[in-house]
């Protein structure tokens, strides 16, 4: 049992980060914190990919004469793309938050909701 837990330590940590991110995203009324939660969630997935690419005793995937075992390079390559996507999402999210704050003078979801409801009634 202990070996199982310890052997998969990286996965437990990743799941932890993922859950914290998702919880923040769901529960916080603050748009900024929502976005932060989303970012954590994405990061956790990136960590997950990198750790499945790890091969025991493997070195960095660069062909040299001394090494015989390499880590799988593909997940890391994929994650480069995913990071780019994540950065773009964050940038767009921040831009939206700035515009929302300008338009509603608030970053709290409940507050914005109230304003929208008032608008709809008119």
């Amino acid at each position, binding site marked *: 049992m202990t070996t199982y837990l310890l052997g998969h330590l990286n996965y437990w940590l990743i799941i932890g980060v993922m859950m914290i991110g*998702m919880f923040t*995203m769901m529960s916080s009324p603050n*748009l900024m914190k*929502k*976005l932060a939660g*989303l970012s954590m*969630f*994405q990061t956790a*997935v990136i960590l*997950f*990919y990198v750790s*499945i690419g790890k091969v025991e005793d493997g070195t960095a995937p660069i062909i040299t004469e001394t090494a015989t075992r390499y880590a799988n390079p*593909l*997940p890391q390559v*994929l994650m480069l*793309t*995913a990071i780019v*996507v994540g950065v*773009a*999402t964050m940038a*767009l*999210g921040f831009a*939206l*938050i700035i*515009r*929302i704050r300008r*338009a*509603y003078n608030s970053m709290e979801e409940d507050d*914005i909701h109230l304003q*929208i409801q008032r*608008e709809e009634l008119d």
Partner: protein
Amino acid sequence: MELLTVLLVVIPLICAPITAMIADRRVAWALTLMMCLALAVISAMVLNDVTTGKVIHYELGGWKPPWGIEYVIDSLNALIAVIVAFIALITVIYGRKSAEQEIHDSQIHLFYAAFQLVILGLMGMALTGDIFNLFVFLEISSLASYALIAMGHKRQALVASFNYLIAGTLGATFFLLGIGFLYAASGTLNMADLAARFDDFASMKLVITALLFILIGLALKAAAFPLHSWLPEAYTQAPTMVTVLLASTSTKVAVYVLIRMLYQVFPQAYWEEMLLPGFLMLSGCLGMLYGSYKALCQVSIKRLLAYSSVAQLGYMIVGIGLNNEAGLTAAIVHMFNHAVTKAALFMAAGMVLMRLHTTSLDKLRGAGKTMPWTTGAFALAGLSLIGVPGTAGFISKWYLVQGALAQGNYLVAGSILGASILAIMYVWKIIETLYFDGSDKLHVHKVGSGKQIVADLPVATACCYLMVFACFYFGLYTSIPLEAAQTAVQAMMGNGGAQ
């Protein structure tokens, strides 16, 4: 032909940055138009080539699959590409005036650039045979559509866009996680390769987790009930052109990916035992009843149509869940038919918005007298939405009910018919208000466009009627979508695996 297919992705990829750099609204529009025209021609040629059952493979950069990225085009994704390209083309022609009215002049070239990126993303999703590549295209189209929705002229558009961003990114990340699990189990990202070697790793528990993550991610993107909450506001608040494009293509592409995953990557027998068909049908049935009911409660035409989209997506999900030939055919044909129908309806709604500056039914009493053409288009396309025989909507309903009855699933058949009756009610709610309610003359605004002022929108009306005509044409002459769907279904149901 192989080279042509990749152009479907490459053309918008080159066009979009150029458009972003040219700060002139006319050139930007013309470029977008040219691009869409090229895509439409190419996609039609490709579809024509593959309905025979032939499959086109294109290896990007000459790398052999399963290591390199491969584009695989069969009649199913060729049909999707045709839907995307043609809807985009008509939307661009239709939307010139509306974009000029809704978007500030200084942003309009960026608007068109983002518009092209959405098309790029959707095309890529449709064509690629590599599962990670699919994720990238999914994010390209999503990010561009968040930006487009935020350009809606009310400030609510910002909130709608933000909520969509949160939901959409969550969905995409789930999808990514699913791909990760699948990769961990199989060591490959190529769909055909995954399917071919599926038996080697089918026993791993990891694969079930992968399937569920992928499914939830895609369901979020496809706005399947109960993960639909982002859709109504996003469609309501987006600029008209964006609504037309997204409503008729983006969710459909997500449904297409769902079909691809369930019928080609994961073998049918694998998920059949998991009660998954039952869940899909439940989600679909609840979706169509809930969506139709909510549509009935709405006052804004745009929001009503958005909820009706939730309902119509339910039909497709049910079709997938039925897991028989008629059901899957219905799902695919309905993608096509609903794209056409919804485009016509949102185009009509957009023209109402442009001329009367409102889509609220309270303020549109008797609009049938002031805008007879637009409201006429609305009424006719509404018939297709209900599924009156002779319209495109009927064809999909026919196959869907047939699929449900062939399986002896009377509850599903009942829900489909019940939702259709709700559809009569919400469509008629609009028609009644437009035609038979009130006599006070409405004030029709002139639509300004640059320096010239035009009273009506002949081009937009013509585009709208083209779609209305398509609603009826494809209700009587169904060979294009039906043949493509049947070829695809036979390919998928026939061997259930790779091609």
